[in-house]
């Protein structure tokens, strides 16, 4: 599934635009502990989190994550949006829980 398809199928808000809407997402990781995300996330995948500080952008870049999804209606501070846009990382948002989002992602894969 591409990032474009993810956004439309899960009705996500686009909080910052990343490098390419057509990039395919190769998997998904859910987590809020940054050092765990660094070692366990999927390269080229989706990262669902409720963390919304600047380090989220830094970790996404480090771990080669093209797309971050803020769950549970967590707000994105302007500085995080700007940093993500600058680094070419998509920042998406939804009011749904991380579980619901991951389940919907998995279901709409097929």
């Amino acid at each position, binding site marked *: 599934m591409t990032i474009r398809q993810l956004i439309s199928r899960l009705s996500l808000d686009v909080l910052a635009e990343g490098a390419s809407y057509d990039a395919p997402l190769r998997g998904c990781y859910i987590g809020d*502990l*940054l*050092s765990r995300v660094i070692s366990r996330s999927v390269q080229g995948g989706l990262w669902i989190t409720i963390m919304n500080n*600047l380090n989220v952008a*830094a970790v996404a*870049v*480090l771990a080669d994550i093209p797309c971050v999804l803020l769950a549970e209606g967590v707000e994105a501070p302007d500085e995080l949006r700007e940093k993500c846009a600058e680094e070419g990382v998509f920042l998406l948002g939804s009011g749904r829980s991380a579980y619901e989002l991951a389940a919907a992602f998995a279901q709409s894969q097929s």
Partner: protein
Amino acid sequence: MPDAIRMTFNVDGDDFAAAGTASSEVKRALKQLGMPPELVKRAAICMYEGEINMVIHADGGVASVAIRPGSVEIELRDRGPGIPDLELAMQEGYSTASEQARNLGFGAGMGLPNMKRYADELKIDTKIGVGTTVTMVLRDRTR
């Protein structure tokens, strides 16, 4: 072999949210120098974990990087409290991170284990009340 390219950064101890600046700069430089992507990624992760540790545990410090063809050496030197039990600190999940650091997503106790995993050499000199120096060497594994 040509001389190493060296970069030095003063890492600020009080800006938790913006920590990681030095590592992104190093990552950019390594990319520009045409270092292999797998080495760039590992070096950036090691540097980030080390930089964050200086910020959240030691009130900042100095990061120095030496880049040579096929290798990167990273040194992180601080005058923080030191690490009383290094073996314990190296264990996954062990963390003394403050509430403030944890609220930002730090404190998984995975930073040092990540550094060990991604670096080819990791050396930690630490003395209580004096400070900690972490040295990492990463080599091009494709060579």
